[in-house]
């Protein structure tokens, strides 16, 4: 294996995971093997927050669970902090923190009891009080897990990942199903950990989360990376930073893609089946009057018109023709 830069936290090469349908006993398989991860390369630097962005079923969870050493890859190599799972599992476990996509911690244990359970696994652990303070659960320390709200449970799950003072924190869909306020609280936690020098690897299918938290993201679809870079770079890659979305009313003759692309400052056009059109544009001030002129020239009106900044969602749609949430 070629030497890696010393500041690499996580790297993997040629990662592949094939689920053999026959081995899914006793659930019963469909017969055909499923390729969950299909040749994936990653280089994640120390101190950065790296996001795996993709729809459900893209292979994000399989990928992080291989990185976390919970799943064995069918082929490929993984290195964390210069160590490998095969050789250094005991040492490596002490240096990473993990919050799985969904863990139901023991409902009838108190928050402190759960933390003490996880603390007992580490040779060097932070105090329960300190971790609770970090995740703002101090006042719930004696409450049973079963009595916590969704956001509080998720913060406890992250507290369990933080007790060992990890160098790398893995978060699998940390905010799925949370209300906006809990989500923001969680984001603050992640930013605080990264601010203190920690490396974060997270999966999400919320583009807003990826844009807020991640220094770099890899967009994953069907088990491999289709684009990688900082959120700003990826959006810049669209060739234009703005999006105009509109829908026509009262027109029997829909606009052709070529007509739209001919408008000034327009770099891309997408027509979806529900009648919505999305244009990526570099200068909305030039594109908009031309669009309105085109529409009124047809004798049609606008049922909907919106301009906004381009997001990672637009990047995903441009790359795959599908929306993230469609899966």
């Amino acid at each position, binding site marked *: 294996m070629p030497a890696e830069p010393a500041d690499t936290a996580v790297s993997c090469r040629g990662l592949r995971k094939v689920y053999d349908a026959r081995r899914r*006993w*006793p*659930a019963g398989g469909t017969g055909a093997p499923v390729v969950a991860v299909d040749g994936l390369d990653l280089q994640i630097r120390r101190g950065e927050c790296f996001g795996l962005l993709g729809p459900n079923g893209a292979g994000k969870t399989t990928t992080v*669970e291989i990185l*976390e*050493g*919970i*799943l064995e890859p069918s082929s490929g190599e993984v290195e964390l902090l210069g160590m490998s799972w095969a050789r250094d599992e*005991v040492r490596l*476990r*002490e240096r990473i923190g*993990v919050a*799985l*996509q*969904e*863990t*139901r*911690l*023991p409902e*009838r*244990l108190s928050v402190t*009891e759960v933390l*003490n*359970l*996880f*603390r*007992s*696994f*580490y040779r*060097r*652990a*932070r*105090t*329960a*009080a*300190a971790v609770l303070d970090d995740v703002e659960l101090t006042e719930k320390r004696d409450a049973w897990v079963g009595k916590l709200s969704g956001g509080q449970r998720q913060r406890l799950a992250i507290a*369990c990942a933080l007790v*060992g*003072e990890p160098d790398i924190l893995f978060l699998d869909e940390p905010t799925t199903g949370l209300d906006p306020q809990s989500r923001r609280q969680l984001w603050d936690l992640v930013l605080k950990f990264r601010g*203190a020098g920690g490396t974060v690897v997270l999966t999400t299918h919320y583009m807003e989360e990826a844009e807020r938290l991640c220094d770099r993201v890899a967009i994953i679809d069907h088990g491999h990376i289709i684009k990688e870079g900082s959120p700003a770079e990826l959006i810049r890659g669209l060739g234009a930073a703005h999006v105009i979305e509109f829908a026509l009313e009262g027109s029997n003759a829909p606009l052709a893609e070529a007509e739209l692309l001919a408008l000034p400052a327009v770099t891309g056009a997408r027509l979806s089946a529900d009648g919505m059109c999305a244009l990526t544009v570099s200068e909305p001030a030039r594109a908009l009057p031309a669009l309105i002129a085109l529409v009124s020239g047809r004798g049609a009106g606008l049922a909907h018109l919106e301009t906004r900044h381009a997001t990672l969602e637009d990047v995903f749609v441009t790359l795959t023709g599908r929306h993230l949430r469609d899966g």
Partner: protein
Amino acid sequence: MAETRDDAPGHPVVQLTLMRLRELRREPGTLFWVFGFPILISIALGLAFRNTGPEPVRVGVLPGVPADVTGALVAGGVKVQPLDEEAARLELRAGRVALVLVPSAGPGDATLGYRYDPMRPDARLGRAVVDGILQRAAGRRDPRPVRDDLVRERGARYIDFLIPGMIGMNLMSGSMWGIGWVLVNMRVRKLLKRLLAAPMRRRHLFYAQALARLIVIPIELAVILIFARLAFDVRLTGSVIALAVVSLTGSASFAGLAILVASRAQNSETVSGLMNLVMLPMFVLSGVFFSSAHFPAAMQPAINALPLTALCNGLRAVIIDGAGLAGIAGSLAVLAIWGAISFVVGLRVFRWG
């Protein structure tokens, strides 16, 4: 961010055991199944099969049976019930009378008829008792003098048989549910996977399950034995050490089976079904409620090879017969083999995720 640990949480096995015990104590349902259920069954069956002294013989008498016959029977302690033909048939069939006395066929005939089913032990007994009374009343003299030496043997009652069976059943269910179901539940909740992602030694989780059982078993045993002593005067004849050895070996054996049953099940329904599949036949075959000797001889080798049979036999030997370790070596060997094989296989195929 660097604090030192000022409130050391202790060894992982201790914390994992505490988790198990806390969940057990804080779940009201489990307390009932562990302690309340065996006691309720013992009370119910103890009442149904209590010993109330010898039952009197009940006899039906058809119209026409001479009064001196019924008089002699009543004087001899037999319960006599006058019946017509139809009622006699019903009572006999239902077993509420052991036999029916039938009058002589005609005026010139003094022969008394005994009508009974010879396949029924109580009918044959009733015939012998009634015949003895009537023949002696008619003047028979027994040529050989005899004397009755009555003994009341402790440990021969049904409840004495039942209590060790209850303990065996409880140790089996305790290990199967307390380990098998709990492990599957942890897998369903992704807690197994989460623990695996932490620097937890896998064996520590199993040690903790065993330790938690070790702590609960003496309480289980004590509750049932104290109850049996107070309510039914059932005594532990053998040594506490022999009882502890057979109980722990049995529990360990079923813990192995529990791990095997739980090794791959992906949801609680599957594991419940598998556990009932393992446990229900043994409830019937292994002599919890009645002696397994009632099953045909051809089945006996298989029945004796079952772990619950071995456990119940061992417990009965210690509790009723006062057997020492040498006397239960066979049972212990059967339990150890089951436990070792299932534990090794279970761990090999155990699925964490």
